[in-house]
């Protein structure tokens, strides 16, 4: 399988003192569900932010389908985010002044063919809340809306940063299930950051980060179904 994203010797320092990442190299395959696992403070969110173009590494390269992301200009990077990738954050990051429908549609890129809106909202189970504002939705509804916003543009890769971190068990399971469905139905690669081992067990590949270093990288030959996750 070809690699959609490759990182080479990524390091990241903050304030020239604290080294969060100490040289991480990895590759993410197309149309896979990859989990980056690690305890709090291990640097996994920083790694995801660098891989997704939200942060620049202090040193090292990120290559997306043969193009070096780290050399992109601000404008090229914005185009790439607009057309190729989707983000799902722990705190949903919905725009508070827009309804669910507007929040989803603001994610549509003018340069790509969007996924069918009705089908997507049906899959995500949010058809009935489209006219609600974020403040009127539950956490689960907000996260499903955020997922819809991220995937409506039909991205090649979806970056999820602790996407279930603010949700209860039932909603978390639902979200993980949905992400797997989206990968299977639309062929979207998913890179999921979590510290939850149960979610990791549903992934095709599990990368573990510890103290800013790649600790373990394993292919999960027998991923469990998201619906069978045992929360604990």
């Amino acid at each position: 399988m070809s690699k959609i994203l490759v990182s080479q010797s990524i390091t990241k320092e903050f304030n020239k003192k604290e080294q969060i990442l100490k040289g991480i190299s990895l590759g993410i395959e197309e149309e896979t569900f990859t989990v980056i696992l690690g305890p709090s403070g291990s640097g996994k969110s920083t790694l995801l932010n660098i891989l997704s173009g939200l942060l620049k590494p202090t040193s090292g390269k990120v290559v997306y389908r043969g193009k070096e992301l780290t050399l992109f200009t601000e404008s090229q990077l914005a185009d790439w985010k607009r057309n190729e990738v989707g983000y799902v954050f722990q705190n949903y990051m919905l725009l508070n002044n827009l309804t669910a429908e507007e929040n989803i549609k603001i994610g549509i890129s003018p340069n790509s063919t969007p996924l069918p809106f009705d089908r997507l909202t049906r899959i995500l189970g949010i058809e009935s809340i489209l006219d609600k504002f974020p403040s009127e939705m539950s956490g689960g509804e907000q996260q499903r809306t955020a997922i819809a916003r991220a995937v409506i543009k039909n991205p090649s890769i979806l970056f999820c940063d602790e996407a279930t971190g603010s949700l209860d068990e039932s909603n978390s399971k639902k979200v993980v299930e949905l992400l797997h469905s989206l990968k299977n139905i639309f062929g979207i690669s998913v890179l999921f950051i979590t510290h939850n081992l149960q979610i990791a067990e549903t992934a095709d590949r599990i990368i573990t980060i510890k103290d800013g270093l790649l600790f373990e990288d394993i292919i999960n030959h027998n991923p469990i179904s998201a619906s069978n996750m045992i929360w604990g």
Partner: protein
Amino acid sequence: MYLFKQITREIVRNKIFVFLLFLLSAFTSFMYFFVQFSIDGNMKMLKSLSVLSENQLLYQKALNSNVILSKNFLIVLIGLTSFVFAMFFYRFYKSNGKQIGCLRALGYKNRVLRSYFVSFTAILSLVGGLFGFVFGYFASDILINANKQSYNLAGLIKNIDLSSIIIGLLAPIVIFCIVTFFSYGFVGRMEVGNLLSGVNNKYGFSGILKFVNSFVKILPVKDKFPYRIAFRKPIAVLLIITAVMGFTVMFIMGYSLNRSSQKVFLSQTVGHRYMFDTHFTEFKIKDEEKDNSIYYLISDVVVKSQNGTEVEQQIIGIEQNDKILALQDRKGKLLNGIKKDKVYISPALNELYGFNIGDKIILTFSEKNYPVIIENIAINAKSKSIYISKEKLAEILNLPANVYNGILSIEEVLSDEGITTTYEQKIANLERDSVSNRNSAVINQIIGFIVGSILLYLALLINFQENKRDILILHLMGYKPKAIGTLLIDIYRPIIGMTFLLTLMPSIMIAQSVQKTLSIQTGDYMPFQISYLFIFVIFILLNMLYSLVKITFSREIKSIIKRENITHYTNTN
């Protein structure tokens, strides 16, 4: 479209701040158009006349001064409003960093986001500017009517040039948009990941905050909390400094302009004992000595100092006669006759251009230079005039010693050739001159009051909006609204007092230098005046203004406690 909706709604959430920005934009153009509508048409009308009456000449002089004043008002108000725009956007970006980060993560470019903010500023300042234009149009009647009465002129019109519209309407919009464009740099240069996580979210005030922490450490325990809260909002503190300085400068200038008219009036009357000043266009030969008159010679001259400053003046060659004109020095001592090769100058030359007693200066007549020494400063010298002995001036002008072209006299000079200004006419002219200064004084004080009020209100508003959570927590802990007010609002009174004391000297210096510049630009000497009593009055006024603003916020504490819920502020989203 959704992006526009999101950003517009987010901005409009700060409706009070936005309204104050609108008010400031409107006020900026209002002050300009209020004055300018009374200038342009009348200036054209006066220029079209081949001969101007004495009143028309005085009115033209006042209009020229007003042109400079209206531009100065515009510059000051554009500066202040730009500052408030920058503060608004700084605060907006600080509190909406995550939302902007989210939009950038969705692929919206800095260029696109920045253009929305610039468009918002353009629209707001355009609407404000148009309001200012319309209100300025109607309000200019006040100035036109005042001028009609002061100068006894009929047919004054209200009109404006296209160039004035461009200056008053477009210049502020362009400058506010430039400020907005650059203020986006607060978030534009930050990485999206940092915006989303709130990391590195110090927005450039870390040095100030470190200083504040060290300062607060030395305070008594009971004062630590409120001072820390107040000083940790550098924007509010900056606004307070600007408000206090703006208020003080404008009021000092208002006072000084008002008092300067009286001082000029006095200087032109004390020791001027003649009742008639008759000026002849042709030189005349003095054929008799009169005890109750002074025969003088008058001519235009360019005065050049040693450092190269050149000033156009009138030079008056006089004979000594204290019964008619008793020139005095700064101590009120009579000046006893001008020595040959020496001159007396007016205080304006000393204060505005730096000419001093003992300086060697060059008098230039028709490209011929004559060096003389400044013997003294005559505080009651005629405006824009220097004095020399009549004998010396006749020598310079290559005229016989008994030639004259003016008479100051107690009795009227009966002649068809001369133009006579009576004492009553002179007083009336001086009073007309002072009208313009008094109008400027009132306008200065109005600007000072309005701008001071708006900025103080904004400072407290920022403090309030950022302290809602603290208010609710203090309420949960059993603090009553009054006690919360003491902790969070009353702290600004001593800060305002301290700011007033610390900025008093710079404010006086600014007011003095602005007035000096105005005097030079308008050619109308306005001696700077200040009094200890008035400084105290400004301090009292400032405190009264603060008390007025405070009442609004004391009520607001109660409504926040009723309206808001602490859980809203504990949500991490």
